[in-house]
Structures are given as C-alpha cells and as structure tokens.
C-alpha cells in the first residue's frame, strides 16, 4: 500500500512535469507577451528593458528552469492584465466553478443511476424506451441552447429561478461559497441542471449497459433463488457489478466539467474560472493561462487517482500494485 502510494505520487509528478513542459513550449510559441506589459508608444529601449525584467531575453532552457522553479514554489507570477497574482485570480473563481460542477454531478448521479438501473433491468418496457429516448436528447442537445431555454422558461416566463449571477455567498476558510446560503442555492439550480444534462445522459446509458450485461449473470438468478427482493438483487448484487465503468466516466466527466464549464458559465454569467480563461486567452495573459492549465492537469491527475482507489473499494479482485 505504501509502496503503491509512493509509486503513484511519482507518476503523478511525472505527468505534471510533462504538462509543464508542454505548457511552457506552447506559451513560448504563441505571441510575445512583452507587448502586453509595455505602453503602446514604448521605445525599443523600454521594450528591451521589459523583456529583461520578464526574463524573456534568456535562452529557452534557462527560461524553462526559472519557470519550473517558480511553479514548484507556487509562484505563478502576476497577471499582465490585472496586476494581481495569477494564483489569487484563479483561486477567487475556482470555488464558483467547483461548486456548480459538484451540484451538477450530484444531479446527474441521482437521476442517471436509478433510471439506468430501471432501463437495464426492464429493457423491453415502454418507460425504458422513453428514458432511453430522453437520454439521447440529453446527449444531442447543445448545452448553450438548453441553458437559454431554461432561462426563458424558468426565469423569464415563470420567474421561479434567477437567470444569472451567483447570489449571496458566505465565507468558508476564506473561500466564497454560495452553497452556504439559500440565495446561492436558488441561483445554482439552473446552471447546474444545464451542466448536468450531457453527463446524466452518458452515465445513464453506461449504467443501463452495465445492468443489462450483469442481468445475464448466474449470480443474479442465484440471488433471486435465495429469496432476495427485486430491489436488492438490482442494487446490492447488480449495480455494484455494473458500476465500475460508470465510476470511470464519472471521474472523467468531473474533471471535464471543472475544466470546461465555460459555456454554461457564460450563459448564466456565473463568475467561475471559464470566463477568466477566455479573457486571459484573448489578452495573452500568460501567467493566468499557465495557472489554469496546471490546475486542470492537477485536478485530472488527482481525480484519476481517486477513481483508482474507488475501484479497489468496489472490486476486491482489483488490488493496488
């Protein structure tokens, strides 16, 4: 177990290092950030000085080394645009994105698992066909359109939910969290539903496929022959055997939504990371983009690690090696 953790940690570090190389190379070949920091009418001497101050006059390996050292030290530099630490900018917005994604994922799980189990256990029934048709819609409808429809219906027509913003937030260990206030919950419902739609559909279909596969297994029939109730046969015996691919996809979707919730955030004016990323890309705000990319890589690596741990909790035949 300890050996596994050490190995895994080294692996994760290796992945992050490779990402840092790629990020550095990408940044170096996409435009000259010097022009972001100097005035429009700067002289050549001023530009050269700015370049020296930013370290851009050094050879590439030296630049990379400095970049890496500051990454390791957690120093991502100042945003060229906001003149604030890039890390601070991201961390201000990260909670908004993460909480919206978490609520969306909870929605997705609560809806997709029972419906998927039902559809897998009763593939012939009319309700299952209806569920499957619905899930196809969930996959095919573009999120921005669903978001606009939801705003039109629930905010404009019926006035049940607000159309934009995050509502009240409460401080928690210095992070601003809207899930701690009723108003925050009120605001999070529509964007979370919009965000959860595709994931719900995918998880539902994965669950159904898994349950159909498991339904043919002898141990399901044996459980019934023991007198186990239908519900327990499906959930205790069936679902546990069908859930591993669902966990895999859940992990990938979780990372994906945190990294790329941009469209939903834009539609609902949700002050998350996505908006900041888009602005930073437009303005070539390198430090912010670097923090963002490294953070996304870290999130994926950590989620994957957790998913692997969850496998071993589900299936005793999978061991940590």
């Amino acid at each position: 177990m300890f050996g596994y953790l050490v190995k895994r940690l080294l692996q994760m570090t290796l992945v992050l290092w490779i990402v840092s190389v790629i990020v550095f190379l990408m940044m170096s070949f996409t435009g000259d950030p010097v022009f972001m920091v100097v005035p429009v009418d700067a002289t050549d001497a001023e530009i050269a000085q700015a370049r020296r101050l930013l370290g851009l006059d050094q050879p590439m390996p030296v630049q990379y080394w400095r970049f890496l050292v500051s990454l390791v030290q957690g120093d991502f530099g100042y945003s060229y645009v906001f003149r604030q630490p890039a890390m601070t900018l991201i961390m201000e917005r990260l909670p908004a994105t993460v909480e919206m994604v978490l609520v969306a994922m909870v929605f997705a799980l609560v809806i997709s698992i029972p419906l998927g189990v039902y559809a897998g256990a009763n593939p012939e029934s009319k309700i299952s066909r209806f569920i499957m048709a619905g899930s196809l819609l969930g996959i095919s409808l573009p999120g921005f359109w669903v978001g606009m429809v939801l705003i039109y219906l629930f905010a404009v027509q019926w006035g049940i939910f607000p159309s934009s913003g995050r509502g009240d937030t409460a401080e928690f260990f210095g992070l601003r969290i809207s899930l701690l206030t009723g108003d925050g919950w009120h605001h999070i419902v529509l964007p979370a539903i919009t965000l959860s739609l595709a994931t719900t559909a995918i998880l539902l279909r994965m669950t159904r496929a898994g349950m159909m596969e498991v339904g043919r297994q002898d141990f399901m029939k044996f459980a019934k022959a023991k007198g186990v109730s239908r519900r327990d046969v499906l959930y205790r015996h069936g679902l546990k055997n069908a859930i591993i691919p669902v966990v895999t996809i859940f992990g990938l979707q979780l990372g994906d939504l945190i990294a790329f919730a941009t469209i939903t955030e834009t539609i609902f004016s949700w002050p998350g990371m996505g908006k900041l990323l888009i602005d930073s890309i437009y303005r070539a705000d390198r430090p912010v983009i670097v923090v963002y990319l490294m953070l996304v890589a870290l999130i994926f690596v950590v989620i994957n690690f957790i998913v692997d741990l969850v496998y071993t909790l589900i299936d005793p035949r999978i061991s940590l090696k």
Partner: protein
Amino acid sequence: MTITIETQTDQPLLELKDLRTHFHTFAGVVKAVNGVSFKIGAGEIMGLVGESGGGKSVVGFSILGLIESPGKIEGGEILFDGEDLAKASDERLREIRGRDISMVFQDPMTSLNPLHTVGDQMDEVLRLHSNLDADARKQACIKMLESVGISQAEERLKAYPHQFSGGMRQRVVIAIAMLAQPRLIIADEPTTALDVTIQSQILKLMRQQIADNGASMILVTHDLAVVSEMADHITVLYCGQVVEQGKTRDIIESPSHPYTRGLIDSIPDPTDRMARLNQIPGNVPDIRNLPKGCNFRARCPRAQDLCAEQEPTLKPQHNSLVSACHFPLQPGEK
C-alpha cells in the same frame, strides 16, 4: 432377499400437474415444458434427466417462479405442500425461495457474486429467512461451512469467491442452499462444471446434506450415471414432455422407452475397452416446430408407421415404470 414396498404418503412434498412453461420468441412459441407431471415425497431424491434443450432446467426455474420474460407458466399446477406456487404472489414466492425451496446452480464460478464476501452472501439468506441476531447468524454460517467440508470457516467467511477453487465454491453454494434448512433443493447440473475428481465428492456431500436435513431434492442432469447413484426416482424428459418415469433401479436395469435405453447405452462401459461409444443418432427436433406423432420417432430404432400418426401417452409398463411409447421395450429386451 427382502422386497421393499413403495410407501407413498398421501400428500407428496411437491407435485407437478401438467406444468406448461412456454417462451414466446419472435421465431415462434418454444414449449420448453409442455405438460410435465411428477411427485416427490419427503426425503426423496428425484433425477430429472434429458439432453440439453430438453426443458429440465426450465422445470426447476418454474417451480421457484424464476421464469423471466419472454417465458411464462401457461398452465398446470405446482403443488408444494398443497399450495399452488404457480398462482402464488411474488411476495409469497420470495418467502419460499431460499427458505423452503433452494437452488444449486450448474457453474459455481458464476453463481456467487464476485463483489461480496462469502460470509455476506451466506448471511443474506439468514437475514431474509430467520430472526437470528448477527452473532447467531455468524455462528450458523460457520457451522454450515464446516459441515460442507470447508476448514477454517471463520476465516473463510471474510474471503471473496475468487479466493476459492471451483469445487470449494460449489461447496459454498451448497452451504448457502442448505443454510435455511429448506425442504426441497433443486440442483441444476450441480457437478457438470466440475473436475471429475471433485464431482463425486460434491455428490456425496449433497446426499449427506439432504439426509441430515431430511430434505428432498430434484437433481437435474443429463448424466444418467450420476442420477443412478443418487436418485430414488427418475423422470426422463424429451422435448419438454415426460417420456418415462419410475424407480431408479427399474429404469436403469430395464427401461421401457427407447430414448431412456439410448441414454443408458451412452454411458461408457469402463470394463469393455473395445466397445464403441454408443450414441443416440440425430438431434433433438426443433422445439418450435415439433413433428406430428412421437417426438422421438426420427431417432428411434423401433419406430413404425403408428408413431408418425399418433402421439403416445404415458401408460404403465413393467415394474414401476410409466412411459409414453407405442412399442415399449419389455423387461430384458435390448
């Protein structure tokens, strides 16, 4: 030599009357079980014999109400202790499953849930069917595991099925089946998937468990050799219908139906090395499209014109035998 007189109690433990279980597929109606009747008394073992596709397993699943769509029990009665299970509610059937009637499946590699411990899968039966507290249940599981020949039972309760060998898993399955002391065990080819060396161990174990608990058993198998060692009575199925019934010894020594004769002849004789391995020519006919007359006609060495015209019905034959044949074998006839 003493003559044992058949003592048939007034009410058998289980009586099937004209059971019909059909599967409605796109390609037509499969009459997997089409008018099967038999009785089992308390403490008896009955062998249900036939080739693959003969409807043997479907009989077992029908008794427990485990027939799934597109299958359906179309008619007949399943009288268990006088109660018709064919008409019982799902709830009632769940009470009976595992408590009064339990099942042992063919393949021990797949009949245990790979993700639950053996102890948990045993405990589940007692949680459902007893009022014992957790500790008493655990003791009962340990005792049961020991009685099926698994040592260090307390440790093994925490193990997962993949940590057991095939034979050991089948012991666990039998332990689960016996745990609530059911009155009837339906064993569906319990040794078919096992090594030959393990087979006889498992059969011995089952017979001993049945005897210890005073339970009855339906032993579903294609292997007449197995049945002849275990069963008191034999019912031979062909194309979903009973073709012959009787006491084991009578059937093995001198069957009256040519199909039974064929099955017996297919058992290799270990003393005669030079003998050709006998087989029944041809295949089981398409059950969706059975021929007129006797279903076995095309494969039968005794078939005559009458067999193509008229379907034979079950008639008493010599000794204890009942069979459906127009030209039954006489005692001693090959």
